[in-house]
C-alpha cells in the first residue's frame, strides 16, 4: 500500500502544483482575454463582408513575414473574419489592414490601395484598384 499511497500523493501533488501555478496567473489575468480583445477589433469589418470569398491582409510595413506575433495576428484575423478566406497578400480586390502605428495613405496609394473605411484600433479596409475586375 506504500506504493499506492506514494503514487496517489505524487499525482495529487502534481495536479496541486499545476493549480497553484495557474492560480498565480489567474489572479493577475485581464478581465478580457487577449484573443477576444484582438478579434473584437474586426467586428465592424465582419458585418460588411459577404458570407464567402477572399480578402487580402496586410500589416505594418517592414514587419518580417516570419515574425511569430505577426503570424499569430494573421491567424487571428482569419479566425475573426471566417468564413471569408483571409489571404496574406495585398494582391486581392479588397484588403484588410491591421496596423499598430500610423501609416500614410499616400504610400499605400502608390501601391493601388485606396482607403474604403477605417474601423478604428488600427483596422481599415482598402480597395486595391489594380485588382479591379478580378472579382471579390
Amino acid at each position: 500500500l506504500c506504493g499506492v499511497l506514494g503514487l496517489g500523493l505524487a499525482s495529487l501533488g502534481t495536479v496541486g502544483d499545476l493549480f497553484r501555478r495557474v492560480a498565480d496567473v489567474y489572479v493577475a489575468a485581464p478581465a478580457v482575454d487577449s484573443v477576444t480583445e484582438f478579434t473584437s477589433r474586426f467586428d465592424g469589418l465582419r458585418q460588411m463582408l459577404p458570407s464567402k470569398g477572399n480578402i487580402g491582409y496586410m500589416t505594418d510595413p517592414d514587419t518580417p513575414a516570419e515574425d511569430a506575433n505577426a503570424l499569430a495576428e494573421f491567424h487571428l484575423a482569419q479566425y475573426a473574419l471566417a468564413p471569408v478566406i483571409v489571404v496574406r497578400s495585398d494582391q486581392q480586390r479588397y484588403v484588410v489592414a491591421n496596423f499598430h502605428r500610423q501609416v500614410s495613405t499616400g504610400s499605400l496609394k502608390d501601391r493601388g490601395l485606396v482607403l474604403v473605411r477605417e474601423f478604428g484600433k488600427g483596422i481599415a479596409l482598402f480597395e486595391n484598384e489594380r485588382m479591379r475586375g478580378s472579382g471579390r
Partner: protein
Amino acid sequence: MGILYFLALLSLGMCVTRALWPGPRRLESADWMRLAAAGPVGAGVASWLYFACRLVLGLPVGVVFGAGGAVLLAAATAAWRRAEPVGDEVGEAARERAPGWLWAILGVTACVSLGAFLMLAVMAPHGEWDAWSIWNLRARFLFRGTEFASAFSPRLDWSHPDYPLLVPGAVALGWHAAGAELSWVAGVLQMLFLAAAAGAGAYTAGRLCGATMGVLAGCVILGATGMTRIAASLYADVPLAALCALSGCFLLLGKRAEGSAAGLLLLSGLTAGLAAWTKNEGLLFCVVLAAAALLPSIWDGASRRRVREAIWLAPGIGAGLAVVGHFRYHMAPANDSVNAGALGTVGARLLDSGRLWTTLSGMAEAAFDFGSFLVPMVILAAIWFALVRWRTPDGLFWTAALMVALQLAGYFVFYAGFSTSLDWHLSTSAERILLHIWPLVVVVMMLVSHPVAAPAVEKPVQPRAAAPRLKK
C-alpha cells in the same frame, strides 16, 4: 440550449453504448464505463451526422437534429429491448473495495484538476494557438458558412484543412443548438473527453486488477497535468486520447467478457473509428487496434478466436474510415505530411541514423518531462515497480502493451520518415502524442502489477434444497 445539447449528446452516447453493450434496466457498476463513453460516443455520432447531413448532403441543420433524435430514439429502444436481467459480467474478480483514503485522493485530484481546467478555460476561452488556428477556426467556418468549400480551401493550408472534423463538427453543432458561438461549448466538450480518458482507464484497471488499482489508475491518469492543460487549450489531443483509451479498454474488457464480448468489441471498433475522425493519428490507432487484437495469435495459437474478435471490430473501424475517406477524397486538400516526400525520400530518412537518433532522443526526452509530474513520471514508474510485486503477463497485458508499443512505433516512423522539420515537430508535439497513449500506459502499468489488495473471496451460497439433512 447549450446545456440541453450536452444532455442530448450524453443521452445519445449512453443509449448507443447500452444498445451495443446491454445491461440490466437498473443501474450497475458497468454504467460508470458507459457514462465515461457517453460523451465521446455521443459527440462522435453527432459529428458524423452533422458531416453526412450538412456537409455531404447540404441539408439544413434542423435535419441534423432530427437525425440525431431518430438515432437517439432507435438506440434507446434497442437498449431497452436488449436489456438483460443480470449484467456486469465483466471482471467478476474485482470485488474488493478501494480504501477510503484513496478515493479521497482521487476526489481531491479530480476537483483540483477541474479547478485548474476552469481557470485556464476562463483565461483563454478560445484556447491556445492550434485551437483558434485549426479546430475552432474550422468550427466557425462550419457554423457561419453558407457553403463549405471555403472551410477546406488549399489557401488555408497553414490551418491543415485536411484534419478530420469530430471536434469542429461537435462544436459547430453545439453553436447551432445554442444559436450563438458560445465559447464554453468547446470547453465543456473537452471536459467530457478528459473525464472519459480518466474514467475509462480507471474503470478498466478496476475491473481487471481490482478496485484499488482502478482508483489509483484514475489518480495517475489525471496526475499527468498535460491532460488538463491540453484539454483547456481546446486541442484535439485529449479527445483523441479519450477515444484511444475507450477503444483499447473496450477491447480488453471484450476479451475478458463472455456473453457481452461482441458488443464490447463493436464499441471498441466504433470508438477507434471515431478516433480516426478526430485526428490523423487516430487512423494509425485503427491499424494498431486490429494488430493488437490479431497478433497475440502468433504465440497463443488461438488464431480463429482472434480473427472472430477482429471481425467484431471491423464495422466501427469501417464506418470511421468510410467517413474519413469520403472527407479526404471529396473535400479535403492533400495532407502536408503525405506530400512530405516520395517513398524513396521517406526510406532514405528512415535509414538516416542521425535522424533516427534525434527522433529517439526527442521522444525519450519528452517521456522524461511528460505530464509535468513533480518527479519525472519515468522515475515514479520505476519506484512503483520496485515497490509492487510483478504479475506474470497474461493475454490482456500483451494486448494492451502491443497497443502502446505499436502506436509509439508508428509515431516514431512518422517523425523519422515524414517530418520535414523534425526538431520543431518534436519540440511542439512530442508531449501531446504521449498523451494519446497515456491512459493505456497506466492500464498496462496496472495489468503488470500484482493487485495490492487481493480480491475478496466470495462465500459460495448453498441452495436450500441442497442442504444436507442430519439424521438422528
